[in-house]
């Protein structure tokens, strides 16, 4: 990587890490069901934060609240102190990008085109520019193509730029989704189960990739079930159970908390009583 790919989100060297994203008492109710209850979370610049919890704990719902897909019933999400706008596309523009639990690529577009869609929100060429091929269109098109090429190289898909995304192997699709999210030039990247369905080798590659993204100056919030992966990766881990924060601490603290083990495996008493 020659030129710096990312303009924003650089970590202040040596200085104290500022708060990037802050969720305060976020609650999401669907009718009578409270999927997320009073969850608070802080993500600092250049930090990797893990979000764990058993199935149905509300992790993805919480993600959707952060990215504008759901409007929280109550509570507030701020990015660098500014309240996040309500629409997903505005959230992206503000600097929060995401991937999906079940891959949602544009399947009949090439890898290159997928990534170039990510640059949409950072480009401005309008209908007139496009129809008459005005300088702004040509300049942006050139920049987007170059940028997408760099990002594909960054995630290791440089030689698959013209492959239709549906034809990529599973692991490559995951990486392409990350490249597409990076193309929106985010300062925070949300990854929803980035290693689901991967073999140990691929998981290691994903780990490496996430570290490299962090080194570019981005903060990362990651949902994952693979505990080894999470505890290797994360500076801090948040455990959600039934929509509520069970514990928020370092990897070691969370790993050794009996309540976390209980939440995943059930309590020994209950099993003894069966």
């Amino acid at each position: 990587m020659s030129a710096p790919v990312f303009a924003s989100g650089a970590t202040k060297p040596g200085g104290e890490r500022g708060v990037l994203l802050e969720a305060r008492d976020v609650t999401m109710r669907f009718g009578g069901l409270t999927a997320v209850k009073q969850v608070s979370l802080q993500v600092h610049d250049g930090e990797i934060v893990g979000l764990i919890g058993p199935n149905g704990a509300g992790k993805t719902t919480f993600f959707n609240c952060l990215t504008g897909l759901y409007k929280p019933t109550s509570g507030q999400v701020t990015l660098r102190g500014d309240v996040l706008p309500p629409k997903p596309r505005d959230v992206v523009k503000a600097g929060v990008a995401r991937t999906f639990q079940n891959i949602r690529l544009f399947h009949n577009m090439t890898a290159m085109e997928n990534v170039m869609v990510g640059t949409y929100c950072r480009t401005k060429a309008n209908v007139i520019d496009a129809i008459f091929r005005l300088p702004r269109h040509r300049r942006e098109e050139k920049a987007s193509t170059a940028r997408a090429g760099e990002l594909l190289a960054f995630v290791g898909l440089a030689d698959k730029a013209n492959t239709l995304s549906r034809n990529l192997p599973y692991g490559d699709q995951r990486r392409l989704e990350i490249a597409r999210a990076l193309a929106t030039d985010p300062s925070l990247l949300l990854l929803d189960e980035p290693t689901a369905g991967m073999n140990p080798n691929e998981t290691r590659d994903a780990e490496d990739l996430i570290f490299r993204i962090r080194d570019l100056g981005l903060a990362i919030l990651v949902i994952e079930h693979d505990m080894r992966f999470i505890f290797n990766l994360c500076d801090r881990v948040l455990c959600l159970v039934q929509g509520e924060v069970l514990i928020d601490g370092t990897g070691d603290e969370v790993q050794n908390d009996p309540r976390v083990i209980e939440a995943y495996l059930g309590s020994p008493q209950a099993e003894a009583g069966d």
Partner: protein
Amino acid sequence: MTEKLLARAGAVRVAGVVAAALGLVTVLLPWAYGKTALDNMTYFFGPSFLQLCYAILLLVALVALAAKWFRGRLGRFAKAVAWADTAKAAGLGAAGYALACLVAIAVQNGGLVMIEPGGWAAFGLALVTGGAALVLPGSAKPTLGKLKSPPWVQILAIAAAMAVVLFAAAYELNRADIEDFLVFGCFAVAVVVVGRAAGLFGWLSLAAANNRRVLSLAAFAVAFAFPFTQNGSDANMSVANQVLIFAATAMGLNIVVGLVGLLDMGYIAFLGAGAFTAAVLSKSAFATLSVDLPFPVTVLISGVVASLLGLLIGTPTLRVSGDYLAIVTLAFGEIFRITMNNLDGVDGPNITNGSNGVPAIPNLDFFGFNLGQVHHFLGVDLGRQSNYYWLLLVVIAVVIVVFSNLAHSRIGRGWVAIREDELAAEAMGVNTFALKLLAFAGGAFLAGMAGSVKAYRDTAVSPDQFVFLESAFLLAAVVLGGMGTIGGVLIGATLLKLLPEKLRFFEDYRLLLFGALMVLMMRFRPEGIVADERRQLEFHDADEELAEEVEEDLVSHHSLLNPETDRGAVA
């Protein structure tokens, strides 16, 4: 064992070649007894044009069968041709064509007795040739499509192909008898099948992809020259104009349906909006707002009015999707027609004169060049329809440039992203609602422009021109031709307007046939005649081989990263 088989294959091949050679001789014999059948096939040693067509097919079959013996001495180009498949297609094609000729002779002259032995021999020998080729082992996939060739060869090939298309189209359209029309149509289909089998089309499409600008210019030149092939007759030009108006409108719909994937069943309303705007603003004695405007301004206003209508209908309805959107737009199309009927001064303000519409729209006049008059140029009388044809050619050129430039821009990518996965597109920062609205308004603008020319060409505009059936046909043109493509929609529009015009005799069964055709298309080739490389995949989801093929094409045709090296790598 294998030797025996090989020996027998050799014998079959010899039989095929001999049959083809004898078949070639039959064109020197009369095929028909009466002079009136087809183009007079009654002479000894004087083959007619349609007989020569047969000879061409059979000659190709002969060469393809014999190619095996010269394998060692073949050039690079000839080695890449799938000779066995070519022989099969050409032999059977010749047989089919001969049969069509015989049937036409029997029908036109009244009975099988009117067929001379030469005709029967032609059919039989072609059948033997085709049969021999069928028995022989097939060939591997043609590699012609991957062959590199110098640019001048490619450009020459494009020019030649375009010239052939012009000649064939002019010849076909000038057939007065339906039998002649169908027989030559059979020949054209046979040529296409042979070209595909040989891999020639793969090579041509690569050449076209490498020289897009040359191709568009050549296509435009051919279209421009078309009126000169009509010897002053306006009949075909009138059909051509209908095709162009229809195609321009369909191209607008192509943005909405093909790129964004929104189903619009009331699209004719936008054409109508443009037509009514131009009519109402025209200098017709019946125009209610008659203003003396230059025509280009009228075109722009018509486009703007249509796109405003697009916004009006889009803003509330684009919140629904899929089938619901189809129903809402269908209703909108009807509302438009009924509203135009009611703006008659009785039920509402008088704008359109109700069901009478606006008749007697005067012809356009550009700097003293009246489009309504016959002009004499290069020894050909060019009538009113020819004049409007050229005007429409300009309109369709504009429409195609707009479509293509929008499709290949960030906006076009956003549209396709919405089609692929709307939620993901929104989550990647694409303003889906605004882009959908833009597609509606933009498509409507193109249709509105076409409508303004339609008003002047038809000299009258009335609400009953814009019925639901027309919307259905527009949608059919896009789907039949190939959603999201330019060539496909042009072909679809041509077929849907041309065939009903030429095949007048089954007018009553037109809709029945059309329905059957649609069912067959959806069953066997749902992606349309000219398939969008990517779109094709959506309909053949499990077809891995196809996916790889498309990918290869994408890499070889327009590699985004480094065109030279990638193309070299594939070839």
